[in-house]
């Protein structure tokens, strides 16, 4: 890059021109990455096709269904906006997350893309910590045992709360919580324990409240934990997957991931739904790992490295892609070979091709 000249001149010294601004330099060409991946079935509906700066924004692609499909206004197009950039100057829009407004004008406060739901305009940041939403399936780690509640790290801006009343205790759903339960909270979950849970509520300050009142949720064992950025997790209806090779994947929406040996869930053992709760004994809070065979361990490692390959190439993670990455990784005899960056790129490329159609 050549030395950059700031276009100032001597007449600038009159204070009236103090705020003179250097003209914006020409739009930079995109770096040609060695792996340029395009994406078909990610959560984003369509690709940005041009880099025109100030075109009229017509919002018909993010339409969620109900209501007016063609509200148009002078809004910057759906490409990247950066902090301080004008999002809209019209009062008809409601301003959502990622924006701030000065008078009638609203500006972006983060670097990201504009998204719209009906009349609500918001800017989704390119990256950021997990922002809990009600109903999210998350994985967390107990960081503190309080009175009648646990504090859980879910990778969000604040620790989440898991109330004693929001967990299943041994003995069934109908069981009343007694004082002795309060005293033996550490017997259920203690600092460092991992669990999966659902976000039950989000407080006004952004902290989440969790619950595990379902047998899908609860303490985790028999497996391996690692994280990816939460922005890479593709939200779907289910976040627990039974993968080929005897491995279960719990893909927390917060980017925390648990890979474990597949075990028979209580519900699959043919116990009637009504008796399910009674069947839930102390084993749901067990800390003991079962026997895990070497081949399953290897499969877990393979899946872990497959997901890490997707993370390395910043490809969104969902069930199909994990399986595709697992299949692609089979050409490498040992999962250990997958830590090479070249291999990761190759796998990610393969995954995107495989899951395109």
């Amino acid at each position, binding site marked *: 890059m050549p030395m950059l000249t700031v276009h100032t001149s001597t007449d600038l010294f009159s204070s009236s021109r*103090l705020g003179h601004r250097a003209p914006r330099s020409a739009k930079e060409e995109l770096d040609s990455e060695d792996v340029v991946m395009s994406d078909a079935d990610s959560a984003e509906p369509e690709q940005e096709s041009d880099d025109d700066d100030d075109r009229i924004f017509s919002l018909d692609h993010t339409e969620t269904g109900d209501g007016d499909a063609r509200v148009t206004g002078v809004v910057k197009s759906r490409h990247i906006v950066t902090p301080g950039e004008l999002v809209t100057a019209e009062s008809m829009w409601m301003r959502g997350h990622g924006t701030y407004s000065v008078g009638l004008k609203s500006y972006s406060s983060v670097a990201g893309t504009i998204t719209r739901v009906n009349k609500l305009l918001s800017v989704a940041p390119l990256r950021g910590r997990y922002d809990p939403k009600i109903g999210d399936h998350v994985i967390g780690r107990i960081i503190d045992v309080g009175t009648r509640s646990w504090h859980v790290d879910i990778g969000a801006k604040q620790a989440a709360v898991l109330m004693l009343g929001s967990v299943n205790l041994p003995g069934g759903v109908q069981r009343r919580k007694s004082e002795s339960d309060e005293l033996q909270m550490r017997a259920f979950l203690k600092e460092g324990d991992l669990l999966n849970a659902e976000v039950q509520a989000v407080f006004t300050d952004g902290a989440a409240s969790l619950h595990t009142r379902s047998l899908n949720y609860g303490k985790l064992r028999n497996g391996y934990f690692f994280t990816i950025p939460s922005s890479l997790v593709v939200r779907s209806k289910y976040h627990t997957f039974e993968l080929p090779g005897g491995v279960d994947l719990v893909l927390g929406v917060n980017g925390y991931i648990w890979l474990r040996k597949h075990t028979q869930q209580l519900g699959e053992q043919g116990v009637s739904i009504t008796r399910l709760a009674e069947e839930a004994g102390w084993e749901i809070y067990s800390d003991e790992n079962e026997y895990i065979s070497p081949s399953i361990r290897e499969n877990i490692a393979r899946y872990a490295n497959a997901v890490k390959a997707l993370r390395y190439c910043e490809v969104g993670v969902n069930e199909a892609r994990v399986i595709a990455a697992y299949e692609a990784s089979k050409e490498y005899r040992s999962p250990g070979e997958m830590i090479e960056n070249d291999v990761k790129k190759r796998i990610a490329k393969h995954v995107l091709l495989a899951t395109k159609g």
Partner: protein
Amino acid sequence: MPRDLTPSTIENTFVLKALTERIRLDSRSFNQLRDLDISFSSTEYGVVDVKLGRTRVIARISAEITQPYTDRPYDGLFIISTEISPMAAPTFEAGRKSEDELVISRIIEKSIRRSGALDTESLCIISGEKCWAVRADVHFLDHDGGLMDAACIAVSAGLLHFRRPDITIEGVGSRREVIVHPITERVPVPLAVLHVPVCVTFSFFDVRKASSAISGRTRKDEAKDVDEDDVEEEEEEEEDDSSVAVLVDATLQEELLRHGYMSVTANTNREICQIQKGGDMPVDVGVLLSCSEAAIMVAEKVTKLINKRLKEDEARRNVGNLLVEARAENDR
């Protein structure tokens, strides 16, 4: 440990409301200094007592002979010590440097030492061997805002007032000896003060923020057209100068409530020695420039007062005109 003296919410709104009507609680105008009183010790040289409103600072200048730093053999030493004890305010802890204290000491350091108010080369006695070490100890006795302004005035006045004992060098080569003449024997020598830096602190208040907080108007608007709490109604498109209230010489209460500040050190030569605008509230450049200009005017006023007080002090010491006689003998 007493935490910060955070003013109550109602105080906050009251002060800000008053400021929107251009009223300060002590009925000063925005660009008016508090009563400044400078007095010198009657017995000792270099002891100054500065009262700026209710803020009180004592500075004591002293000098001793030491060895200069090896990398600067021709320079004397000049040390300014500004430790704030809990005597000034309970928020300050003894022995632990708070952030405020750090800022104050850095600003005084920059204002006086780095701006070259004291000619350190004149403190050299024998190059590389002996030099004067001038030390300024600043004691903060009472804190009602404007500690650095008061401290800066105190040190500047102290340097002007201070007299070091006269010395003579006897012998040649390595057998040189320095003879210090007690003040009672010879007329002591003033320090070579090149200019008199005066620090002025401007406090910025965002008046619009204040008025919206008072009426609650913007907040209501915000709730009306916005259902996310993500929205901020703050800065206006083109900020005009009237939205910023600039106060000179804030009291402690104003200091705690202000949204931003800038301290400028200036002297009568129309020189700016130091500017420190912390990162708080963003302010238009023009405001900053006019503040710097105002600082020069304040510096002229304060310097005038210092000189007046110095003259009075000299007249008081010079009863019977003895000093002039003594000096006359020394004139060559």
